[in-house]
């Protein structure tokens, strides 16, 4: 045989002695070869040592899957040494995704039932670390038995294993709920800790368990009181606080039990007050307990005096020098800001202070909290603070900060001018971090504020003149200059300093944007269109502009090329129309929810308002005014199978004359009802086609069983033409689930009286049903 195998320590020394990565790899590969050989030979004496080495190598990141079966063999061995390493290997190498893991179930079962507590402990530990759902199901009864064992060591481990099992297989809660009450009477802190964890897990998972455990609130209160009032005991105390871990756990459980429950909350009030006032917070352990107490007070239905106390404690912690405490205080305040807004507002100055911390974690928390605290009365001051934070904050927070400021500005802006200023400042400071719709929002905002056009265009011009690299800013500025260029050149505006701008300067600036390599294609598009618009706004002649436009007629970028060519054509052939086309844009509505295919399925006949055509002023759509000249903006809309019902008129961008008046409405009809399945018809006569009738058939199911294989067929007299479109589905879920809709198109060129026969086939309550009936009471408007 045998080169005597290395001891673990020797291997580690060798690895550490390796001077380079390659050397280390060599050593490890050699050793792994030995280990593999030894596994193959099946040497039982050295197996545990080999596995220990393999685990070390695995920790360094090298593959170790060939050790999985060895773990099984070691676990099955009677020696404790072997089992120890084997179980460790199982925890590190095996998990639910490996097929081999189920094989240790049997070994664990044996080990759980044989009396040596160290071995039982190992088995429980492994089970709770990597036990999969199947393993948990198989071993649940074993673990339950162990809950009653005499050894407290085994019991405490069994309790925590039960928690893991419940997480994996929630049905096992039934087994583990009954022993909890008895386990609460334990004196051993480890068991108590585990039991509280178990009860917490059970309560979080099921409201029934929550109700059940409200009974133990008095007992929990007693345990906590004993902990708080007993004097200094060395056993479990950490810096003078007796077992803070257990205290924290109990407080957490009390929080869950007392939430929304008056009676339990009452029972806890005194105790919480006692803990809050008596805990010594000079060391971390006391602070931990106090924090938990504060969170519990805020979460349950506590007395108002107690709540005030809690918020004050948090305020005190915010001023503490210890960074950890401040961090936790900020986190807790964030949780409370929704429910106790005014109380948290009082601490706003301190929170804003924390923004200036160099510590990234703290400033992130402070940012979130500050954004939550902005309201209409403090918006100016807060935005000021947040803007200065934006200038100096670390890059990963910039995006959040920028969008937060923009959102706050939108909600609480006191004046439009302030709003524009704020957005402008954000764009200049952190332009690349803002979201895409910031440009759209700003253009829409400026467009809507007529009195501020002059002001905006001047400010944007100055900003652009300074810096053409921030794309969102450049886009907005280009658009603005294009639209309001005349106001720019025209003399003074009271709100800004007098700015004398020459036409040539403006054109030069836009050309610079066009040519700069920093400009993205979209930005170039904006700039080109702005130049075009200026050709009508400026008083001088437009030769320079024509030149630029014709150059871009052969640009490589297709979008730009297309625009340039169209603009060129505008100069040459349609010069008489140029002024009209390039007029100032009317105010665009904000894009509300767009109606697309999926939205229609869920709303079908109940659509009360068709949404506006996509009105986001994206450069490519809106500014292509030439497209609209071709007439129908209908290509921008998806063809609706359902025309708008009364009230929703389509708003076209330029309010083209001749928009059809909304059609008169025809009442809906309920035509069929059986055991909860109902059929409704709704009718529309589109105004453009007098012979056409659109019927939307809607089937709804309010019964307790699903309707499946639902098919609806229709028949009409010979003079009519019927077209059935595909239904939205063939299954109607029970209890008012998603209805099935189907569109019928009926052409009635002779205006003959409408008759309609419907045939339904479906399965309901386990039976197949067929119904044929004629629709009576069809309103006259459907065919006249």
């Amino acid at each position: 045989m045998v080169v005597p195998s290395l001891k673990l320590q020797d291997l580690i020394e060798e690895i550490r002695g390796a001077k380079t990565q390659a050397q280390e790899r060599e050593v490890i590969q050699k050793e792994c070869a030995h280990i593999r050989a030894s596994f193959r030979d099946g040497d039982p004496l050295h197996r545990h040592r080999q596995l220990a080495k393999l685990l070390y190598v695995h920790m360094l990141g090298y593959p170790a899957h060939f050790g999985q079966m060895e773990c099984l063999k070691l676990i099955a061995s009677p020696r404790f040494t072997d089992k120890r390493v084997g179980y460790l290997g199982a925890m590190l190498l095996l998990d639910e995704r490996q097929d081999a893991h189920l094989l240790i179930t049997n070994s664990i079962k044996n080990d759980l039932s044989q009396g040596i507590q160290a071995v039982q402990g190992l088995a429980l530990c492994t089970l709770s670390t990597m036990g999969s759902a199947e393993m948990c199901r198989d071993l649940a009864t074993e673990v339950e038995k162990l809950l009653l064992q005499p050894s407290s060591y085994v019991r405490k481990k069994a309790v925590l294993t039960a928690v893991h099992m419940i997480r994996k297989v929630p049905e096992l809660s039934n087994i583990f709920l009954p022993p909890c009450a008895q386990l609460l009477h334990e004196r051993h802190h480890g068991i108590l800790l585990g039991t509280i964890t178990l009860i917490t897990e059970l309560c979080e998972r099921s409201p029934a368990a929550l109700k059940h455990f409200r009974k133990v609130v008095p007992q929990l209160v007693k345990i906590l009181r004993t902990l708080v009032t007993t004097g200094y005991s060395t056993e479990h105390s950490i810096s003078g606080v007796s077992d803070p871990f257990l205290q924290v756990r109990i407080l957490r459980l009390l929080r869950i039990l007392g939430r929304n429950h008056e009676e339990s909350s009452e029972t806890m009030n005194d105790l919480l007050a006692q803990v809050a006032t008596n805990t010594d917070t000079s060391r971390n352990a006391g602070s931990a307990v106090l924090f938990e107490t504060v969170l519990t007070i805020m979460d349950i239905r506590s007395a108002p005096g107690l709540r005030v106390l809690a918020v004050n404690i948090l305020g005190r912690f915010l001023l503490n020098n210890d960074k950890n405490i401040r961090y936790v205080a900020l986190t807790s305040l964030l949780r409370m800001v929704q429910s106790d807004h005014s109380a948290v507002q009082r601490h706003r100055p301190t929170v804003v202070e924390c923004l200036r911390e160099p510590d990234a974690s703290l400033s992130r928390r402070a940012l979130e909290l500050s954004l939550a605290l902005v309201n209409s009365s403090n918006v100016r001051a807060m935005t000021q603070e947040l803007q200065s934070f934006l200038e100096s904050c670390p890059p990963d927070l910039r995006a959040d900060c920028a969008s937060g400021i923009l959102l706050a500005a939108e909600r609480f802006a006191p004046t439009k001018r302030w709003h524009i200023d704020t957005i402008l400042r954000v764009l200049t400071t952190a332009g690349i971090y803002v979201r895409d719709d910031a440009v759209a929002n700003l253009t829409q905002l400026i467009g809507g504020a007529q009195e501020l056009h002059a002001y905006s265009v001047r400010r944007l011009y100055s900003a652009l003149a300074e810096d053409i690299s921030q794309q969102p800013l450049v886009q907005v500025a280009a658009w603005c200059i294009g639209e309001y260029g005349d106001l720019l050149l025209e003399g003074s505006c009271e709100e800004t300093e007098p700015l004398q701008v020459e036409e040539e300067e403006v054109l030069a600036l836009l050309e610079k944007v066009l040519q700069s390599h920093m400009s993205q294609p979209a930005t170039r598009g904006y700039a080109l269109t702005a130049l075009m618009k200026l050709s009508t706004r400026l008083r001088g002649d437009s030769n320079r502009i024509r030149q630029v436009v014709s150059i871009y007629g052969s640009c490589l970028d297709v979008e730009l090329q297309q625009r340039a060519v169209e603009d060129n054509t505008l100069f040459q052939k349609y010069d008489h129309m140029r002024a009209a086309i390039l007029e100032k844009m009317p105010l665009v509505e904000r894009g509300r929810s767009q109606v697309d295919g999926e939205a229609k399925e869920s709303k079908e006949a109940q659509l009360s308002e068709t949404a506006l055509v996509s009105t986001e002023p994206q450069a490519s759509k809106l500014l292509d005014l030439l497209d609209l000249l071709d007439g129908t903006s209908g290509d921008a809309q998806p063809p609706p199978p359902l025309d708008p019902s009364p009230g929703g008129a389509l708003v076209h961008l330029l309010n083209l004359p001749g928009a059809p008046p909304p059609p008169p409405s025809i009442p809906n009809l309920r035509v069929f009802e059986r055991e909860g399945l109902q059929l409704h018809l709704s009718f529309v006569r589109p105004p453009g086609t007098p012979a056409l009738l659109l019927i939307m058939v809607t089937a709804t199911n309010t019964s307790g069983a699903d309707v499946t294989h639902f098919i609806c067929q229709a028949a009409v007299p010979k003079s009519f033409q019927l077209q059935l479109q595909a239904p939205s589905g063939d299954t109607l879920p029970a209890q008012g689930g998603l209805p099935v809709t189907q569109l019928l198109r009926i052409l009635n060129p002779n205006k003959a009286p409408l008759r309609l026969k419907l045939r339904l086939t479906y399965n309901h309550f386990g039976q197949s049903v067929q119904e044929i009936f004629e629709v009576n009471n069809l309103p006259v408007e459907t065919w006249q």
Partner: protein
Amino acid sequence: MECSFSASPLSHFIHFIPQPEEIQQQIVRETFHLVLKRDDNICNFLEGGSLIGGSDYKLIYRHYATLYFVFCVDSSESELGILDLIQVFVETLDKCFENVCELDLIFHMDKVHYILQEVVMGGMVLETNMNEIVAQIEAQNRLEKSEGGLSAAPARAVSAVKNINLPEIPRNINIGDLNIKVPNLSQFV
């Protein structure tokens, strides 16, 4: 899910959520870089990187000389409490190893695992009383020693042979016609 490691790229990583191997190593590296960057006078809490579970998870760490102990926890644990837990763990290590230092942790990484198994199990806090933990570890070590352990066996065998007091063996045993030559065993003693 928790892990603890030292200032060199060596790390003990114990996980309670199954992750594929490569991801594990990536998490360790990312955590390592995140924590190393931290100054000493800022708070001990880090929001986790993108790989670690998302925004619900935090990294809580403590720095002892050249070692960082990092625990990754979700929102069901009290942050300040975990700081104390790390302290308990380190003090337990100290008791078990007698003035523990970084080399102890490296060379006896299996023992560190065993100790950690007594403190935290299945991702939940099991026991925080140092005396209990140490007592349990010592009991287990005694169990292991009584079985001999592999390294002990040959040494004991050799010493057992050395202690055999072989009496003076006659060199030639004459039993009638049988002549047994007794080999000289003295070199093995």
